[in-house]
């Protein structure tokens, strides 16, 4: 014990004595996500790696930031997630929590972060509530939300002429929210919703629901679910000849990890909206290949979001010179970014990050040149259009 304190002092002395005149700032980031369940592949350890890459790429050490990264599994349970978040803030000195997929957990952690002087840099969750009904001054919602997905997929498909929709919806908050958002978009674009069915979460067998969807006579079956549920639904739709019989599928929330699991044979032609794809430009390719070396898979948009959010956060900490949550968030909101992964964008006063979204179509096996060569870009949805407008109650600019 004595020895480690002595060593620590020596190290600090060496550090401060040589290169840096300024004091180091200790920053502790907590990556809280699903490490074992449905969302473990799209977030999980990959997000921890992304956060670590951000710290390295930022050259945190040279800039006088001493960054430590913690990680934990919230098991997609709000109570588990809340407990970890509270303990992190109270006992581990965590300054910001990253990722937090599963909307119910994210909303709980957003509240705790606000109460306990932390910041939630959310990448994994989709609920628009994070920056609408249940917004908080210390929540920053980086990557996507259900409204943006609905906008991308719902509007593009309806305008392309397939205007009768049937929804297959996961029976929990996220599914309902995704369904509702998409219904609004479809109806605004002149489409019609002919029905919907709510399936238990999680579910393995979708044949029954798919047959109900088939009987509805809809042009498009919208899958308002996520992860393994979406994968199974798509797989079984192809098995039951639903796509062959002329109906098409729209995955309202799908990640590249899911498409990879399905393989292009099953997923081809599927349209979906994402905020990031590894093969968009040289910068995304460079970063993604570094990521793949460490994780054996291409990054999802959630991983990319964790990286960019951590970057932007660290820039703010460096500029402000402390981890005071109000000052850091104010700096993040005041300064727009030009990010290698998300391009140009900014954090809106309500915490919603505004950047472009993309509509992709899954390539046919013949056009795919590799395991991860999966998407063809169909459209760009400008950030201002993709996300919901800010509501007055969530405009925190006056306080900032």
């Amino acid at each position, binding site marked *: 014990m004595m020895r480690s304190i002595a060593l620590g002092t020596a190290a600090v002395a060496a550090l401060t004595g040589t290169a840096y005149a300024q004091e180091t700032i200790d920053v502790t980031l907590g990556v809280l996500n699903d490490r*074992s*369940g*449905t*969302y*473990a*592949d*799209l977030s*999980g350890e990959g997000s921890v790696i992304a956060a670590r890459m951000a710290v390295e790429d930022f050259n945190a050490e040279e800039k006088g930031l001493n960054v430590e990264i913690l990680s934990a599994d919230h098991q997609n349970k709000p109570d588990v997630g809340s407990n970890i978040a509270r303990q992190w803030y109270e006992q581990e000195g965590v300054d910001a929590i990253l990722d937090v997929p599963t909307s119910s957990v994210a909303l709980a952690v957003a509240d705790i972060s606000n109460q306990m002087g932390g910041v939630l840099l959310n990448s994994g969750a989709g609920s628009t509530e994070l920056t609408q009904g249940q917004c908080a001054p210390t929540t920053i919602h980086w990557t996507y939300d259900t409204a943006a997905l609905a906008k991308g997929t719902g509007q593009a498909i309806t305008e392309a002429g397939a205007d009768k929709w049937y929804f297959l919806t996961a*029976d929990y908050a996220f599914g309902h929210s995704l369904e509702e958002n998409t219904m609004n978009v479809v109806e605004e674009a002149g489409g019609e919703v002919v029905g919907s*069915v*709510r*399936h*238990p979460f*999680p*579910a*393995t*067998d979708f*044949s*029954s*629901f798919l*047959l*109900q969807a088939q*009987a509805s006579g809809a042009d498009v079956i919208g899958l308002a679910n996520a*992860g*393994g549920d979406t*994968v*199974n639904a798509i*797989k*079984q739709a192809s*098995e*039951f*000849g639903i796509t062959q*019989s002329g109906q098409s599928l729209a995955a309202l929330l799908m990640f590249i*990890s*899911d498409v*990879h*699991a*399905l*393989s292009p*044979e*099953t997923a081809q032609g599927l349209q979906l909206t994402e905020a990031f794809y590894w093969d968009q430009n040289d910068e995304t390719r460079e970063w993604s290949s570094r990521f793949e070396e460490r994780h054996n*898979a291409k990054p999802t948009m959630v991983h990319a979001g964790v990286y960019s959010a951590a970057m932007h956060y660290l820039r703010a900490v460096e500029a402000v010179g402390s981890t005071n949550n109000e000052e850091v968030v104010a700096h993040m909101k005041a300064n727009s970014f030009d990010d290698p992964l998300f391009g140009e964008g900014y954090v809106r006063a309500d915490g919603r990050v505004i950047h472009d979204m993309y509509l992709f179509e899954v390539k046919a096996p013949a056009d795919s040149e590799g395991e991860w060569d999966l998407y063809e870009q169909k459209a760009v949805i400008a950030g201002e259009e993709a996300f919901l407008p800010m509501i007055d109650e969530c405009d925190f600019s006056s306080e900032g």
Partner: protein
Amino acid sequence: MFELLGIPPQVLMGQLLLGLINGSFYAVLSLGLAVIFGLLNIINFSHGAQYMLGGFVAWMLLTYFGIGYWWALILAPLVVGATGLVLERLALSKLYHLDHLYGLLLTFGVALIIQGLFRNYYGISGQPYQIPEILSGGQNLGFMFLPNYRAWVVVASVIVCFGTWFMIEKTRLGAYLRAATENPVLVGAFGINVPRMIMLTYAFGVGLAGFAGVLAAPIYSVNPNMGADLIIVVFAVVVIGGMGSIMGAILTGYGLGVIEGLTRVFYPEGSAVVIFVIMAIVLMIKPEGLFGRGA
């Protein structure tokens, strides 16, 4: 055209058939549990993990050795059965003189370990496994499009269930098994190697889980959690049918598949709980289960 509670008969027929397909998995899995419980008196909590293993072994055979579905259907249950053999010899057999609870805890722990390992190596999204060429496509039955593979699932499960029932109820080997279930000491005193029989029975029950896993591989994604969700339902099926009753496990499996299928049409939100509601009712009215021999 007449409708039943607003549901056209074609849709109803389709849903009944789908229920039967799901019931096929319930039947094969609950049968394995019942066989194991009958002789070992152990509630095999690793059954779901062993079902998952079956799917993964099939996938590995294909990916690493180029061995296709039909061989996997035979080999994977053997491999999974062999792991069961090892588990029984090294661990379960040490617990027979203790309360049943210990066996349950052990198998539960084993399930967590197996699932954790596979999650670690293969992630959660699942691995693709294609339907064998000969069973791709399907039949238009008028009221629904029945994929050939699903029809095969029903046929294969009926064959396996009936075969197992026949073996246990009608053969000499089955007579040993039934006798050992009642009085293992006396059966041993007749010169029969009861420990070996117990070991092989466990391997067989576990092999059935592996078989179901291979059947499931082409239609559900092969992922480390595929058994974890299913197994809870299957336990409910076994409880409803009556622990240790072979025919009970089979019939309840198919029956509950159909009931669940119907719930998906009439009240989809309830389809996840209907089996548990039935379980609660059965436990109140007939605690030993519908086909149970009594406690």
